[in-house]
């Protein structure tokens, strides 16, 4: 069946069940890992670890379950634009809110550190 579909340019990509199972397992392992790591004191790296695992899990769902790995370039660029705009919203909002407490003119990059540290 898959051999026949390969010759038909109109046929969608059928993802093998084994791929779905591997993605499912990876997502479950990721859930266990993120829960486990929350109980270990890593300081601010707890937040980094949790968000990194969440982004990896999201990527797996988007690429395989949502078939974006097999999607056209047009669809992909629309999705990337969505995340880019999300980035703009978060970055510009934070650049306003998190700099309101600046009382002196910042001198040098060390001024950034207390701001970044407040995020975690």
């Amino acid at each position: 069946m898959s051999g026949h579909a390969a010759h038909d340019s109109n046929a969608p990509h059928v993802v093998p069940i084994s791929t779905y199972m591997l993605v499912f397992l990876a997502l479950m392992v990721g859930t266990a890992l993120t829960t486990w790591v929350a109980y270990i004191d890593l300081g601010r790296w707890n937040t980094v670890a949790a968000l990194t695992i969440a982004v990896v899990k999201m990527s797996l769902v988007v690429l395989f379950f949502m078939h974006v790995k097999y999607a056209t370039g047009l669809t992909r660029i629309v999705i990337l634009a969505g995340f880019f705009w999300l980035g703009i919203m978060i970055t510009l909002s934070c650049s306003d809110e998190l700099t309101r407490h600046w009382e002196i003119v910042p001198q040098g990059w060390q001024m950034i550190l207390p701001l970044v540290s407040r995020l975690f």
Partner: protein
Amino acid sequence: MAAHSAHPPGFAHQFETVAQQREAGTLGMWVFLVTEILFFGGMFTSYIIYRSLHLHSFIQGSHELIVKFGATNTAVLIFSSLTMALAIRTAQVGKSKGQIIFWLILTMILGAAFIAIKLRYEWYRDYVEGLIPGVSWLDGGTHTPGVKMFMCFYFFMTGLHALHMVVGLGILTVLVIMTARNKFSSQYYAPLEISGLYWHFVDIVWIFLFPLLYLIGGRYPGS
């Protein structure tokens, strides 16, 4: 194009090929999902800012949530995403409608289980323990004022997520009826594919809500 597929079922005349129609459907759904990304993104942005302003309170509030229910629900939702993907695949390879309906119903059961766990073991408990601002707030003076802010974020974010789950269950009900009425085949299953995108999106929102609300406050002693 083979002779018998000159007019494939579900093929609309404004499209040149079936593949073009499929891309248009997928693209349209993603445009909607991008608005959803920014809709939830507004709440995530507010969460980031208020968390940075009231970090101690947010950590204290986070410790009021029970990790085992959040983790269980994460697993339930991931499992439901798998069954949804398998429902679509079952249609793609032209299996019987009974098999498609089996995977759709299993997805619905898992989605309902998520909401049931949320209601019974989390929100109801929050009500009894007085953790719902404005509805049931029994603060023995142990909470800093920012904890109320955290719980507001918690209920708005999980509430809107659960609302999306309820909408998803409605969509799945329609899909089951459409499948039973022989609307889908290996040639045409766009409603399944597009509804699947929605279901997976709701899963992704939870993938971020779980660590943000339950975990990053730190669960280790002294946090």
